[in-house]
């Protein structure tokens, strides 16, 4: 399997782990009644800021671990440079991400319009960002598998 495809699998794995932990964390806060008070938006804001930094750190860490393990097993060096086909596939992935994120964003706003709690709407927007990233990765995987 080409290096770029393996990198995408690691990225999907990383996004699933982070969103899994984040959903569990938010559910715990919700069960504890942390979103019932006046500072619900503050709690959500802090959680999302923490999530952004944790997700970046987790992705970098997993990619480094993957590059090391891959180099040991396959003896192939990591490919940091992208050629023109990689860049075009990256753009296709970005389109997939933006479409999925837009759908999630509109759905979250619709939920807000129908009376959902604002902290749940924030959660919806954040979750759509992560699912959009997974969709973008799947689109990239599709084009890598097909050739373009």
């Amino acid at each position: 399997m080409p290096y770029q495809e393996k990198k995408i699998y690691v990225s999907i794995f990383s996004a699933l782990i982070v969103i899994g932990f984040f959903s569990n964390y938010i559910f715990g806060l919700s069960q504890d009644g942390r979103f019932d008070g006046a500072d619900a938006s503050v709690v959500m804001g802090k959680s999302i800021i923490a999530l952004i930094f944790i997700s970046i750190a987790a992705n970098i860490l997993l990619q480094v671990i993957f590059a090391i393990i891959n180099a040991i097993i396959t003896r192939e060096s990591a490919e940091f440079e992208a050629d023109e086909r990689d860049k075009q596939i990256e753009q296709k992935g970005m389109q997939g991400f933006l479409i999925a994120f837009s759908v999630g964003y509109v759905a979250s706003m619709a939920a807000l319009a129908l009376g959902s709690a604002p902290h749940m709407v924030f959660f919806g927007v954040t979750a759509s960002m992560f699912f959009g990233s997974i969709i973008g990765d799947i689109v990239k995987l599709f084009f890598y598998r097909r050739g373009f």
Partner: protein
Amino acid sequence: MAKRRISNNIRRLRFDHDEMTQKQLGEKVGVTRQTIVAIEKAHYSPSLEVAFQIAHVFGAPLEDVFSFQPDGAPD
């Protein structure tokens, strides 16, 4: 998928150049082996620059490496 109208002779040209591998060609042109595979199978049409670079590696004019089949032309 739309029918590809650009075909190429890269496989034959590699064979004629001492069985040059896809990896070697990729290194000379500055793309990955997977991109050479995709170009060879006509799954991906390269940029003009890469197309000219491939032709330059084989020392052949561009039209000897790539050919274009216009719409409505017989196969």
